């Protein structure tokens, strides 16, 4: 018991610096967002004075023309990319985990190799191609690169999850009268749910947070929030738009936090405990 407590305390002690390290930038952004315009550059970490002017500016004021459409684009791009990526990755990973076909190792290897590619090296050629085939500044024009970025990782994660699910479960379902599709849908997918959620969240975050593709492959009509932030301007040329950018950053962080809190349990949830004698 004492040992247990000791362990707990030492763990807390180790994690404390990590928590502080990761929280400082977040708190700082929050602090900048609520600082009144006049105090923006006062070199204080904690805000002296509190105002919601910045939020008003980007939601209803002058910057809302820039921010609100970008927010909508972000949501659309994120959701479409996530849906397609999860569905494709689930099928692909299932095939890799269950079937024996030639070229299986090749697929996994290529998938991994692709994800090692530096993103920035892809942007310029992609920009050229997109412009000539009319995908520039469109939603699909963003979704496609995000898919190719996230699919490799999703496939790797999901095939690991599928491989953990005992073959017998599926065979049992088939003997019980299920078709392969029913066995997949009623037994395998529910069991792989933590993996599916994990990949879904990874994909959504990638699409949601990406700046490089967003700034290079869009103009007015498909611009997402990270790119739009770069176009914020101050109220006059003597004012920095720091407050407005921070406020926007706070707003786009909210869905991320909510998602993580919602699905945290599902991600951590034990996978197949009790399926077979362990």
């Amino acid at each position, binding site marked *: 018991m004492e040992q247990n407590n000791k362990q707990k305390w030492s763990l807390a002690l180790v994690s404390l610096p990590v928590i502080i390290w990761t929280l400082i930038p977040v708190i700082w952004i929050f602090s900048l967002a609520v600082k009144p315009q006049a105090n923006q550059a006062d070199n204080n970490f904690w805000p002296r004075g509190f105002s919601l002017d910045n939020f008003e500016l980007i939601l209803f004021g002058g910057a809302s023309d820039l921010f609100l459409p970008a927010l909508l684009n972000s949501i659309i791009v994120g959701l479409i990319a996530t849906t397609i990526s999860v569905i494709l990755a689930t099928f692909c990973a299932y095939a890799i985990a269950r079937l024996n076909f030639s070229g299986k190792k090749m697929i996994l290897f290529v998938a991994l190799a692709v994800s090692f590619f530096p993103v920035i090296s892809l942007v310029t050629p992609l920009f050229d191609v997109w412009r000539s085939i009319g995908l520039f500044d469109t939603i699909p024009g963003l979704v496609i690169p995000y898919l190719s970025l996230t699919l490799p990782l999703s496939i790797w994660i999901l095939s690991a999850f599928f491989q953990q699910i*005992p073959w*017998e*479960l599926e*065979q*049992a*379902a*088939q*003997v*019980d*009268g*299920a*078709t392969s599709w*029913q066995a997949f849908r*009623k*037994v395998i997918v*529910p*069991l792989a*749910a933590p993996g599916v959620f994990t990949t879904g969240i990874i994909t959504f975050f990638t699409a949601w947070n990406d700046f490089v593709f967003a700034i290079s492959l869009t103009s007015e009509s498909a611009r997402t929030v990270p790119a739009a932030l770069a176009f914020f301007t101050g109220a006059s040329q003597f004012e920095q738009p720091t407050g407005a950018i921070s406020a926007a950053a706070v707003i786009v962080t909210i869905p991320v936090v909510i998602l993580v809190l919602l699905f945290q349990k599902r991600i951590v949830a*034990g996978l*197949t*405990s*009790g*399926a*077979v*004698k362990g």
Partner: protein
Amino acid sequence: MANIELRDIVKTYGDGFKAVKGVSLDIADGEFMILVGPSGCGKSTLLRMIVGLEDITAGELKISGKRVNELAPRDRNLAMVFQNYALYPHLSVFENIAFPLRLARGQFTEDEVKQKVNAAAAVLELQDHLDRKPANLSGGQRQRVAMGRAIVRDADAFLFDEPLSNLDAKLRGQMRTEIARMQRRLGITTVYVTHDQIEAMTLGDRVAVLKRGELQQVASPRELYEQPVNLFVAGFIGSPPMNFLPARVDGDVLKLPICDIPIPGELQQKLEGRDLPIVGIRPEYIKDSSVQRPNDRDVTFEAQVDVTEWLGNEQYAYVPFESDPAVQHKLDELDRDLDGEGLRTQLVVNLDARSRIREGDVARFHLDPAMAHVFDLATGENLTRNEEEAARIARESEEDRRRSLERSKAREAAEAGAS
């Protein structure tokens, strides 16, 4: 209700490994058939071919006279209990049992599903656990849920793949009788794979003994025990196993390492040209002469006992002997086939618990030579197998089976009439 017919079933894996080499087997309606053999003998593969989880390379499989080789598992209407139970961890016990019913969409109303699951749960005493998840159940309970999933549908046959091997010894004994009771009650054709010969002997109407993909003998447990067809079956069935002794034919006696036994007339012809047969004697046929008086025809001998094991109801004594090197290679091969470890050659004697023989004693034993089996060294064939006796045992056990099946059907009908 169905009979299952296997005709020259062959399984060759992609790498060319032949797991099953032409097995033919008829399983009668309502019969409890056991597939038994050491690991790697192809018994599980055979079962999985019956249920449809493995393709049949060659041969024909018929269920109720209909060829099913090409049917998917779901179209064969068989129920299977897996070795590791294969319960669906995300579903409650109720939903696990109801799973096959829910798949037959539109066939059952919600009330029917409930009623059927509750009936199955009542048979298996799972009523209190219906809302729990498999993860929270004990091994025995999980095993019962797996059986519940099988009995809830009106399957043509049950298939068990070593269902008890994950349970501890006490629970295994309980579940064994439970399975026997259930099978008799439902009177359903059952194929049961095991490597445990106690399960094979106690559960089966008939037992099919397999060795490296080949069927050795299909017979009732009693026939296997008393009239095995060859060395392998004789060594596999029985615990502790049959003693195999190298013998030398010398005129009309067989010289064993421990004693000489006379050769009866009919065996003498068969032994011509076979100078080095193997003699098999079950441990319980060797008696302690100080507890039990020998009969006139018994052969007596003295031997030094190396180790004794007293178990309360019986006692084992071990007598080491020097083996004939000309025969040893055959005995080693047999030992490997039986998953043995190739340890020292010793005679096991199953003594009466009252016996006062202790370690290191030189004791007097006797045995009835008529109870000994004599096997051919090269082919392993049992030269002393009595076909008439074997046929009589087969007839008797088939009668027993029919009677008990009729009884259970009559009881079922009476219960149905009463309710």
